[in-house]
């Protein structure tokens, strides 16, 4: 055994007492923090952001090997399917070229109409690209950490998109890293419209892989396959971002399958959207 057994025998009852006291104290501290966190206490928020600032650089470094490994696996897969992929892309390119023509015509037509009715032009969007450096491992929250923050101009509320569509929004902006609340999270609420019929609804997450629609007009008739896009209401997201498709309309609940593949979320673009403000003076009141 280890040396100093004699001292240990004398010290162990005392140590046991200290341990028990520390245990009770820490349990109390954790419970207090939970209550304070629930009430939105500023001290807890500050503690959270301090830990966040310290931990995210470590996470950024550690996430690098995972990225490299994933890329290697992808590249090997690609080598095997190079020919098929080439044929598929050629087909897709042909189709996209046609769409490009259509889009150009529509853009011109749209510009003419806009000038005729003197519509206000939509504000300009700026993008910040960021790499996903962490995802929530917990089963009760759906968030992702990205390596862009306040120094890149990120603030809370901005939309995060991938090439497929809306992924979520920034809920916490640290200096060099931020947290994205994914659409599937329990606390995610996004005002949307159904493309085509223009019915409005609120898209709600519930920690499952799909979302559901709430506050939809009773008269609305939806069918599986209808596209859902952001409405731009509420001043959170720019309008028209693709969100997902209605996947099932069974027993009253309308499920929406997101366009974004959350299993393979590697990069996101954060849209810095300058929302038109009715009055600068209202800015302070909104917070």
């Amino acid at each position, binding site marked *: 055994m280890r*040396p100093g057994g004699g001292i240990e025998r004398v010290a162990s009852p005392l140590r046991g007492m200290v*341990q028990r006291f*520390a*245990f009770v104290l*820490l*349990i109390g*501290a*954790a*419970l*207090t*923090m*939970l209550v*304070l*966190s*629930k009430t939105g206490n500023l001290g*807890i928020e500050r*503690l*959270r952001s301090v*830990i*966040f600032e310290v*931990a995210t650089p*470590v*996470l950024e470094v*550690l*996430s690098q090997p*995972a990225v490299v490994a*994933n890329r290697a696996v992808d590249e090997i897969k690609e080598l095997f399917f190079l020919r098929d992929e080439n044929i598929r892309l050629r087909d897709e390119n042909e189709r996209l070229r046609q769409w490009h023509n259509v889009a150009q015509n529509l853009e011109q037509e749209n510009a003419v109409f806009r000038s005729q009715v003197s519509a206000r032009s939509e504000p300009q969007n700026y993008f910040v690209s960021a790499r*996903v*450096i*962490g*995802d*929530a*491992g*917990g*089963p*009760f*929250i*759906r*968030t*992702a*950490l990205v390596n862009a923050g306040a120094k890149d101009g990120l603030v809370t509320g901005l939309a995060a998109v991938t090439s497929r569509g809306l992924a979520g929004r920034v*809920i*916490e902006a640290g200096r060099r890293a931020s*947290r994205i*609340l994914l659409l599937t999270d*329990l*606390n995610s609420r996004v005002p949307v419209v159904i493309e085509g019929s223009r019915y409005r609804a609120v898209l709600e997450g*519930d*920690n*499952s*892989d799909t979302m559901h629609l709430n506050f939809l007009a009773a008269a609305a008739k939806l069918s599986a396959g209808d596209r859902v896009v952001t409405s731009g209401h509420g001043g959170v997201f720019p309008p028209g971002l693709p969100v997902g498709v209605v996947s099932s309309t069974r027993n009253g609940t309308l499920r929406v399958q997101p366009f974004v593949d*959350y*299993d*393979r*979320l*590697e990069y996101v673009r954060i849209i810095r959207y300058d929302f038109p403000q009715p009055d600068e003076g209202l800015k302070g009141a909104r917070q």
Partner: protein
Amino acid sequence: MTQVPVGVFLIQTLRATIPGLTLLLCIFVASVPMGLPYLSDVTPFLSLMAVYYWSIYRPDLIPAVVVFLAGLLQDVLTGGPVGLLALVLVLVHGIGVSQRGVFLGKSFQVEWWGFGLVTVGAILFAWIAASIYFTTLIDSRAFLVQGMLTIAIYPLVTRLFSFAARGLRTV
């Protein structure tokens, strides 16, 4: 106190931080996006394994304060309620330290079985606490999957811990 050379003292101090470092590593690894299908939603509760393992084998090197701070770190990284995982991990640490006599010197099956019980308790507790916190009944399937996954890979992960523990014999 006997005099120890400075070099030996330094190495021993560094070694003594190994349990804490494995706990930290578990938390970061669980947060790194692996890009594996289905695992993005539910990752095994790695930190639970580290706390349970070290509280049984080397409680002297993993004080409750360290476990508490590690729990806070995990709370912040996952973006969950601050204090929730800290609470869960400190409770598990308390159970491990007080019941370690039951597992020490017994077969691995006994240790694994104990871990199963602790995991079920910890995840049930986390589910109830999170449901109260968010004042809604959270989908329990993800918790169930996380629990099963955690128990299933415990032998694999603790194999790595036992390498570290072997190196700690002299500390």
